[in-house]
C-alpha cells in the first residue's frame, strides 16, 4: 500500500483507442492494492489488475489534461485523460511500482481469498493429478516406467533438452537411454528425434563453432608441442573454451542407433517476442488500412510462426500414428518449443485432451510440470525483459486454430482459451507462478494459494462448445490442414477489449442457450408425461383425461418452473441481442461524417478516413 499516493481521481476521461470522434466516457478512477478501477457515468466498471499491466506511459500534456496510456498483457489498451498533471503523475508512479513486483510473495495469489477453507483448497489442487493421468495413459507398464506415452499407440512422445555435445562430445549413457526408448516400442525399429529449432540457425551456429573447434585443436597441439610452456594457464583457457563450445548441440545420427533426426524450424523466444510486438504495433494503429494491416501481418511473421508450431505438431502426430515410431522432442532447454510441440501433438492424437478437464491435465503435464518458465515468460516479477516471450499464447492460438478447423472436436470454446490466457498473467491463482516444480514447492503454493482449475470447472457452462461431438470416430485423431489460407488473425484475442471492433459474443452462447432450453423442454415433457401417467393410474375409471390435463396445468409445478426458466434463459439471449446487434455508428470509423454535416462552410475536409472532400 505504500506505493499508492492517490486512491481516487474524479473527472477522468476514458478514450476509445479506435474511435476517431474523440468520444469519451467520463468517470472516476480508483486505485486499490490489487486493481485499477474505472467507473464511468453509467456505473459501468472497468477493472484492471496491476499484474496485467505491461506498460504505462504518460504522454505530453494536452489542453484537456494529462494522457495516461496503459497496455495490458491480456491485450487491453486503455487511454485515460487525467485532468490534473499531479494526479496523473501520482497514478503513473504508483502503477509503475505496483505492476512490477520484486518478490513472489507480493503477487496477488498470495493475498487472494475466495472464501474457501483449507480442505476445499486442497481438493482444488488435487483436481488435476498427474499420477492419475499417467495411469490413464496406461503407464507405467512393462515397457515404460513413469514417463510419457500415448495410450493408443505403442509409440511414445518423449522430451528432453538439447545434448551438450558441442561439436563432438558423446555420452554413452544418453545413447543407451535413447536406445532403450526406441526398444520400448516394439512396433518400429527406428525412432525420430525432433529438434524444434530451425536448421539454418543450428548450421550457422555450427559453422562458427567449428572454427572455434579448429582453434582449440590448434591451441592444444601447440601447447602439447611448444615445450609445455605455461601449461597450467593454457589448460585453464582450453577448458573454458571447450565448455563454451559444448554449450549447444544436437544428436549425431552416427552415435545413436536407429534414430532419424529432424529439424522442424520453430524460432526462439526472442524472435517470437519481437514478432508479437510487431503484431501489436500494427493492430493498434488508428485508422489502419487493409493494405497496411496485411503487410503488417506479413512483416510481423506471427502467423508464420504459428504455422511452424502447428506443422511440427503434425509431424509428431504423423510419426506416431502412421509410422508407429516413438519421438523424442527437444529444443535448447526443452521447456518452450518442446512444450508447444509435445502438448499440441498430444492434443491431435488423444481426444481426451480436447475435453475441458483433459485440457487442464495437458497444461499441467506438458507445461507446468515440465518446467515451462511461466514467471519469466509472462514477466510476473520485475526481471529480465529478454526472458519474456509469448510461447504459451502461441500454444493457445494454435489450439484456437484447431477449434476453427474442427468445430466439433473440442468440448471447450474460445472463451475457455481466453480465460486461461487471462490467468497466466493475472497471478491470481498459484498454478502459473514460478518457473519450475522445484520453485513452486519451495514457495509452498499449494498451501498459500488457490488452484485455477476448480474455478473454471465451476463455470464450465460458459466454456462448453455446443457443437462438440465426443463420439465422432472421424475426429479421434485430428489431421489439420496447414495451408496458409487456414491461418487467420485471432481478433477475439488481440481485440477482446475493443468493443468498437465488435468482438461480438460468440454464436456459441446463443446455440448453447438454445441447447439448454431444448433439454429443459424435453425434461418438462417427460415430467408432464409421467404426471399424466400417475394421474391415470390413480383414476380407476381412466376417463376424463382431457379435463385432467386441464386441471393439471394451473398448478403443475413442472410447468411453472419451466415457464420461469424459459423467461430466465430467454432474457439473456434477448439482452445479448440488444448489446451485440444494436451497434452504434458512432463506434465506427465512418462516423466523422457527423462533423461534415454540422459544418456550415463548404470546405475541403481531409479526414483521416480517406478522401472526404466536400465541394459544394
Amino acid at each position, binding site marked *: 500500500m505504500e506505493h499508492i499516493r492517490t486512491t481516487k481521481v474524479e473527472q477522468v476521461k476514458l478514450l476509445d483507442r479506435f474511435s476517431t470522434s474523440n468520444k469519451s466516457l467520463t468517470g472516476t478512477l480508483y486505485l486499490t492494492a490489487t486493481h485499477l478501477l474505472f467507473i464511468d457515468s453509467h456505473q459501468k466498471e472497468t477493472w484492471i489488475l496491476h499484474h496485467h499491466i505491461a506498460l504505462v506511459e504518460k504522454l505530453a500534456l494536452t489542453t484537456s489534461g494529462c494522457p495516461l496510456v496503459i497496455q495490458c498483457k491480456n491485450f487491453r489498451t486503455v487511454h485515460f485523460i487525467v485532468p490534473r498533471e499531479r494526479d496523473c503523475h501520482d497514478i503513473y508512479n504508483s502503477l509503475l511500482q505496483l505492476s512490477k513486483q520484486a518478490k513472489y510473495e507480493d503477487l496477488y495469489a498470495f493475498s487472494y481469498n475466495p472464501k474457501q477453507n483449507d480442505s476445499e483448497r486442497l481438493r482444488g489442487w488435487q483436481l488435476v493429478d498427474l499420477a492419475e493421468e499417467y495411469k490413464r495413459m496406461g503407464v507405467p507398464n512393462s515397457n515404460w516406467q513413469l514417463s510419457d506415452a500415448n495410450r493408443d499407440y505403442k509409440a511414445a512422445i518423449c522430451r528432453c533438452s538439447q545434448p551438450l555435445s558441442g561439436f563432438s562430445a558423446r555420452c554413452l549413457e544418453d545413447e543407451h537411454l535413447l536406445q532403450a526408448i526406441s526398444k520400448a516400442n516394439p512396433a518400429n525399429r527406428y525412432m525420430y528425434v525432433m529438434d524444434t529449432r530451425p536448421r539454418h540457425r543450428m548450421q550457422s551456429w555450427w559453422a562458427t563453432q567449428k572454427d572455434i573447434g579448429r582453434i582449440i585443436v590448434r591451441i592444444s597441439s601447440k601447447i602439447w608441442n611448444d615445450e609445455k610452456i605455461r601449461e597450467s594457464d593454457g589448460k585453464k583457457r582450453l577448458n573454458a573454451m571447450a565448455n563454451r563450445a559444448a554449450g549447444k548441440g544436437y544428436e549425431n545420427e552416427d552415435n545413436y542407433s536407429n534414430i532419424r533426426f529432424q529439424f522442424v524450424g520453430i524460432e526462439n523466444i526472442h524472435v517470437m517476442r519481437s514478432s508479437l510486438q510487431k503484431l501489436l504495433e500494427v493492430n493498434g494503429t488508428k485508422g*489502419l*488500412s*487493409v*493494405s*497496411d*494491416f*496485411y*503487410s503488417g501481418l*506479413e512483416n510481423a*511473421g506471427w*502467423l*508464420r510462426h504459428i*504455422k511452424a508450431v502447428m506443422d511440427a505438431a503434425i509431424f509428431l502426430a504423423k510419426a506416431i500414428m502412421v509410422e508407429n515410431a516413438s519421438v523424442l522432442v527437444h529444443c535448447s532447454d526443452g521447456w518452450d518449443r518442446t512444450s508447444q510441440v509435445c502438448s499440441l501433438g498430444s492434443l491431435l492424437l488423444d481426444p481426451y485432451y480436447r475435453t475441458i478437464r483433459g485440457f487442464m491435465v495437458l497444461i499441467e503435464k506438458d507445461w507446468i510440470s515440465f518446467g515451462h518458465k511461466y514467471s519469466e515468460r509472462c514477466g510476473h516479477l520485475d526481471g529480465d525483459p529478454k526472458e519474456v516471450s509469448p510461447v504459451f499464447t502461441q500454444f493457445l492460438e494454435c489450439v484456437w486454430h484447431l477449434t476453427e*478447423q*474442427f*468445430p*466439433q472436436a473440442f468440448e471447450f470454446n474460445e472463451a475457455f482459451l481466453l480465460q486461461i490466457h487471462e490467468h497466466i498473467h493475472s497471478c491470481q491463482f498459484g498454478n502459473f507462478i514460478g518457473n519450475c516444480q522445484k520453485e513452486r514447492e519451495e514457495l509452498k503454493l499449494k498451501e498459500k494459494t488457490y488452484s485455477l482449475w476448480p474455478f473454471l470447472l465451476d463455470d464450465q457452462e460458459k466454456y462448453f462448445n455446443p*457443437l462438440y*461431438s465426443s463420439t465422432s470416430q472421424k475426429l479421434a485423431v485430428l489431421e489439420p*490442414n496447414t*495451408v*496458409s*489460407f487456414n491461418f*487467420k*488473425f485471432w481478433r477475439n484475442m*488481440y*481485440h477482446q477489449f475493443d468493443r468498437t*471492433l*465488435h468482438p*461480438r459474443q460468440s*454464436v456459441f452462447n*446463443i*446455440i448453447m442457450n*438454445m441447447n439448454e*432450453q*431444448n433439454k429443459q423442454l*424435453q425434461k418438462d415433457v417427460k415430467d408432464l408425461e409421467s404426471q399424466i401417467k400417475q394421474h391415470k393410474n390413480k383414476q380407476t375409471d381412466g376417463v376424463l383425461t382431457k379435463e385432467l390435463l386441464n386441471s393439471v396445468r394451473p398448478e403443475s409445478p413442472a410447468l411453472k418452473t419451466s415457464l420461469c426458466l*424459459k423467461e430466465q434463459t*430467454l432474457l439473456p439471449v*434477448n439482452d445479448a*441481442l*440488444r448489446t451485440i*446487434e*444494436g*451497434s452504434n*455508428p458512432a463506434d*465506427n*470509423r*465512418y*462516423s466523422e*461524417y*457527423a462533423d*461534415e*454535416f454540422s459544418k456550415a462552410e463548404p470546405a475541403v475536409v481531409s479526414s483521416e478516413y*480517406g*478522401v*472526404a*472532400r466536400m*465541394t*459544394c
Partner: protein
Amino acid sequence: MEFSELIRTGQAQAELLRGPEMPPLRGTLCVTGHHLLLSPGPQATPDLWLLLLRSVDSIEKRVAGDAGTITLRCKDLRVLQLDIEGVEATLDIARSIEALSSLESVITSFPFFYRPKGLRLGEAWHFHPPERYYKRIARETRAWRLSEANEDFSLCPSYPRAVIVPRAVDDDALARSARFRQGGRFPVLSYYHAPRGTVLLRSSQPLTGPQKLRCAEDEELLRAVLAEARPGARGFIVDTRSAQAAKQARMTGGGTEAKAAYPGWKRLHRPLERGRPLQESFVRLMEACGDPEQSMDRWLSRLDGCRWLSHVKEALSTACLAAQGMEWEGACILVHGAEGTDSTLLVTSLAQLILDPLSRTMAGFQELIEREWIQHEAPIFLLFLDCVWQLGRQFPLSLEFGEGMLLALFDHSYASPFGTFLCNSEKERCLCEVRTRTHSLWSGLNQPKEQRKLRNPLYVPNPLAIWPSVEPQSLRLWQGLFLRWTHPPEPSEVAWEKVWQIATDQKTEGSQPTDSASEPQP
C-alpha cells in the same frame, strides 16, 4: 440454328481428375446443347452433370501422344481437368465446348429449355415488381408516387416500366430530367427510411459537360425530394468517384451537380473501384487462392496485393455513410457515379441491408436484389455478396438467409437454368419474353427442399440498424466462396448441420421463443 451443328463430337472416353484425395472418375463424356456430362458407365450411379456450358470461362487444351487434356475454368471459380482418349476427340470436344459456351443469343440459352417438375412457368415472376414496393411506401407517406412514364422504355431503357418519384414532379419533368442524365437514369427512389422519413435515391451522373449545362426539371426534382421530406431538410449526394474523376467526366459530357443549382444538397466523394481494376483485383485474388503450396508470407502479401478486401471495406463504409446520413442526420441521400449501374447499386443495396430489417429477411432480400440489381457487371455483384457475407458474419443472428443463399446467388448469376439473371435490362427482358418463357430463380430457391441450405437457423428478427465494423481486423476473406474448390471447408458443413439440428429442435419444441425475443426494443 441447331445445336447439333456446333457439336463436332458428342462423346468421348474421359477421366475427370478430382484433386489429390479422390481417385479420378472414368466415364463417357457427352456434350449436349447446354451441358457437359460424364456418365460413369452402365453399372454405376446416375450421370454426373459436370456443368452448364455457359459457365465455362476459358478452355485450355493440350495433346500428347494419342490422348489429350482439357482444362476448363468456370465462372463459378471451379477448375475442371479432363483427360480424354484420342487426339481428334479432344480437339473436337474442345471446339464444341468453345462454340457452345460462347453463344451470344439469349433465347437459345438453357433457361428457355429448362422445364423442371413441380414448377409452373410464370410463377414468382410477379413476386417483386416495383409496384409491390410502392405499396409498402404508400402506407407510410403520400409524398411519393408510382410513375409509368417509362412504360415503353423511352425515358430509360435500363429502368423498369414503373418507378417511384416525388409526387410533386410530373412525367414531363421526368422526361426532361432523364435527358439530362446519362443513359436516362434520372433520380428515382431506392429506399424509403420510414423511421426518419428520409429517402435513398439513385441516378446516373448529370450531363453538365464542359459548358456546365443545367436542367431546371432535374433541379426541381431534387428540390421536391427535400421539400417532401421535411421543411429545411438537407440532402447529400454521394458520388462514387473521386472529386477529380468527377471533374474530368465533364470533358466527356458528364459531370456533377453544381452547388448553386441544387440548394440544400452537398456533395461527398467516396471513390469506389469498379470495372477493370475490380476485375483485376478479383483475378489476382483467385490466383492467390489457387495455390495451396505457397508460404504464409507469400499468401499474406498476395492477399494484400490483390486489394480485394480494401474494396470490401470501401464499399461497406460508403454504404454506412449513406445509411448514417439517413438514420442519424435525417438527410436524404442521392447516390451516383458515372453510369449509376454498378457502384451505385452496391451502395444503395448495402445501405438498405444496414437500415431495413425487412430487407434482411429471405423474401425481402430477394426483393432487394430484384429491385436494385436489375443488371450488373461481373465482379461488382460478387463484391456486393461479399459485403453481405461480412454483415452476416458480424451479425450472425440478423440475416434470415445464410451463406448458402449467397453462394447460390453467385452461381446463378453466371450460369443458371433460371431466367432471373438473364439480359441486362428490363427492356431486353421484355423483348425476349423472359418472364413467360423461363422459370424464376426465386420459385426455384423458395422450394421447401432448398430451405435448409439457404436459411440461417439462428435468425432472430432484429428491428435495429446493423452497423458493421469496417476495420481491417474485422473483415475476413470469404473462404466459403474463394476457397470453395481448392480447399473445401468440410468439417464446418457438419457443424452447420448440427446448428440446424439444435435450432430446429428449439423451434418445434419451444413455444416459439424467437417471437418473444423479436419484440421491438425501444
